[in-house]
């Protein structure tokens, strides 16, 4: 199922892209407009996805996991899911809480999800957030958001 789902999903996106590209001015062969090249790209994408679907050239998933999990992919997938959720959480909360708090929370949640001891996760989280803030905001002059405080 999944091998065919991937080209089908890309085909759907390519269809939307083609629809949007056709709204742009195409121009002529001698004076190509802003839509000329995107239409070529969209047609190319649709044709490739159709070839993939018809010929059954699928995308075969590999199992997630490590030797430590004895072939059970669930703990490995859980670790990836927690890391991904922490990543998305960082993007959502940083504008509101500022960099140091978001960074510390990101490191603590990720390390706990990966199996660290709570005291180690909290220590590394606080030191990592302060260290990276000092490096980027202090040394490299990057204006990182500070939050409400």
């Amino acid at each position, binding site marked *: 199922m999944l091998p065919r789902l991937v*080209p089908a999903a*890309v085909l759907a996106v390519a269809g939307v*892209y083609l629809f949007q590209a056709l709204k742009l001015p195409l121009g002529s*062969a*001698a004076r*190509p407009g802003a839509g000329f090249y995107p239409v070529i790209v969209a047609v190319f994408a649709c044709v490739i996805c159709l070839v993939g679907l018809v010929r059954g*050239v699928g*995308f075969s998933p590999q199992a997630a996991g490590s030797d430590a999990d004895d072939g059970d992919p669930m703990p490995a997938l859980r670790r990836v899911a927690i*890391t991904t959720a922490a990543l998305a959480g960082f993007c959502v909360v940083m504008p509101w809480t500022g960099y140091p708090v978001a960074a510390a929370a990101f490191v603590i949640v990720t390390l706990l999800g*990966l199996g660290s001891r709570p005291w180690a996760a909290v220590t590394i989280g606080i030191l990592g957030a302060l260290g990276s803030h000092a490096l980027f905001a202090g040394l490299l002059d990057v204006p990182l958001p500070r939050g409400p405080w």
Partner: protein
Amino acid sequence: MGPLEGLVYGFGVALTPANLSACFVGVLVGTIVGVLPGIGPVGAMALLLPSTFALHPATALIMLAGIYYGAMYGGSTTSILVNVPGEAGSVVTLLDGYQMTRRGRAGAALAIAAVGSFVAGTIGVVGIMLAANWLADLAVQFGPPEYFAITFGGILLLSRLTGGSIVHAFVMVAIGLALGTVGMDSISALRRFTFGSVQLSQGIDLVPVIMGVYGVAEVLLLAEEGITKAQIASVRLRELLPTRQEWRESAAPIARGSVVGFLTGLVPGPAAVLSTFISYTLEKKISRTPEKFGQGAVAGVAGPESANNAATAGAMVPLLSLGIPFSPATAILLGALVIHGLQPGPLMISQRPEVFWGFIASMYIGNAMLLVLNLPLVGLFVSVLRLPQHVLATLVMLLCLVGAYSLNNSFLDLWVLAIFGVFGYALRKLSVDPSPLVVALVLGPMMEKTLRQALFLTRGSVTELIARPLTASILIVTLAAFLGPPLVAFMRRRRNGRSPVAA
């Protein structure tokens, strides 16, 4: 400016304190990255790209290139001592390198790998000096049609050489080309695919995409493993000296590996990885004792280790002389130059000699630094492997996030990083190489611009466009390289299929 005159000028640039420090930081970070399994040179270059924005273009290029060839040195250490390749270019080294470690010759294997890498790196730099100048002279005659043919050829050939299905590669190319069209059209200034977002009208930044599909995706793969620790063999300094017999056995493979690696670097594709396989196969074929390969043959370490370093030098030739990256690592170097307002190509040598020659000279200095760093400090580098991988992975991800934000102080870049990180991870799990996407994203805008300019020049005549002698030559070579290998394989299959009947 001739090659020797240029090199002397380049040493003047590379030996300034700022550039020397950048070179040192680059090769040091590269070595550490090479030692660590998981984070490859491309991911590390992508991670450090934002920190080079405040630097002079030459300094930024020197540091990023140092990471690239430093990782080639460092990768061999993990292959030889731990039987785990630090990065993809060191996979072949572990076949004989780890066997040498099991026989108590780990020090000799490390020393031969380091000396071989140094010699190959130096030969490669001489090759760049000669080939880049010659190619740049030729490229001065190029107009939009020729540049279109080169960008088209680069994308087409790289998609063929990444391995795996061509349909997968073309899907990646299509996504990369489509992403390259987002934002303001460079000719008509019309906004395309921005859906009303002001931030998107600047286009999708290359750096968070690269950091996502390589850096974040690799960290997510490390997260799968959870808490892991490596078993490491210890090496004493006095054990580093190879015997006279080992030196004799490694001299010719180092020379051959250097030439093979440099030539492999000149063609599109994962040159550093490909060159090690070619070198290993070559050494095994011409060896009087092929049965020793896989059992700890010195030539099996010397050849491939020289080849991967020479390939990194060879890959710089098309980048510096034509402005075309033939690999993801050189695509990041191109990205760094573009961010600094430079367009690599034939005119860069004459217009920005301090960047071009300073960079070349820094590669000599970097190779010497690596030799000094790698031999006595091998124990220190290996101790990096004792750091818990999950802690390292989390902190690397944090650096990715803050690095992506610092590009434009934009939250959009953070989301692009996160989305492409998850996308890159999914691609790895589906056994799809993301390199064609990155190359298409880098070359796509250039391909569109040159295609439209070329069509304007030829008044819309495609025949006139492809009939120009240089354009036709480039397209014929590209198509021959693209269609040649599958055609040969098809003919061979047909011949093999007939032979039993004929017999």
